[in-house]
């Protein structure tokens, strides 16, 4: 259970719309801070703040290259988050699958008792 709380933090980091846009942008490859700001029309302090949160959540990392600091996406953390959330969605999906089967059965029974087709 130890990994659960950080997972919630990772999720919270990604839930902020501008941070989600940054993550989407970084899918295209590593980018320097000023480039991210220009692409998303955010000022540099905002971008730096968001990148700091994303970095703390393990979603991005940074490497110096020439005069610049390049930010890149850490796919492993995103996959972990995805798997984590997917578990909860699957619970509901499993429930809804059972509900779907029941609904099909109810529909059939109704067709027999109705004796008419309303399609």
């Amino acid at each position, binding site marked *: *259970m130890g990994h*659960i*709380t950080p*997972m*919630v933090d990772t*999720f919270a980091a*990604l*839930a902020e719309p501008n941070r*989600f846009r940054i*993550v*989407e942008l970084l*899918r295209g490859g590593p980018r320097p801070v000023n480039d991210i700001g220009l692409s998303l029309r955010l000022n540099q302090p905002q971008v730096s703040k968001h990148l700091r949160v994303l970095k703390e959540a393990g979603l991005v990392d940074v490497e110096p290259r020439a005069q610049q600091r390049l930010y890149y*996406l850490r*796919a492993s953390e*995103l*996959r972990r*988050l*995805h798997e984590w*959330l*997917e*578990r*909860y*969605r699957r*619970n*509901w*999906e*499993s*429930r*809804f699958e*059972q*509900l*779907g*089967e*029941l*609904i*099909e059965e*109810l*529909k059939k029974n*109704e067709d027999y008792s109705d004796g008419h087709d309303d*399609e």
Partner: protein
Amino acid sequence: MVTTMNETDMRLQGDREIVISHTFNAPARIVFDAVTKPELVKRWWAPKSHGAMVSCEADVRVGGAYRYVMQQGNGPELAFSGTYLEVTPPKRLVYEETFEPMKHLGAVKVTVTFEEKDGKTRIVNHSVYPSKEVRDGVLASGMEHGMREAMEQLDALVVSLG
């Protein structure tokens, strides 16, 4: 992972909310019955991995009470109970729910809407938790749902990462 009409979509909204939706291939009145009549609820409500329902009672009218109890193997009985605040068949259902072992955390307010279109019905289950802590606790406990951005967005993102 391809998201189709009939898949279960889930997102988190604000700090305290979880929204789950799914489309069924049936008119709303049938879906509404399946979601509210206790003898029908008994047959689907407990996800297989979570055990079976041992009891299911519901007095589906405004002010009426319900209690759903499930059990996994020989584990403890887990009861969810609450009161109906609004019952508008086959369109809308609002109730307050308490997970009895965690009663002290307060009740969740759940609004379920049934939107029928072309013979199909989309149900949207919108839960508002008493606090962010409780909602995130529910997410973490495995009891239920969640997430803020549409699941398919994240799906696409993960797929693109290869």
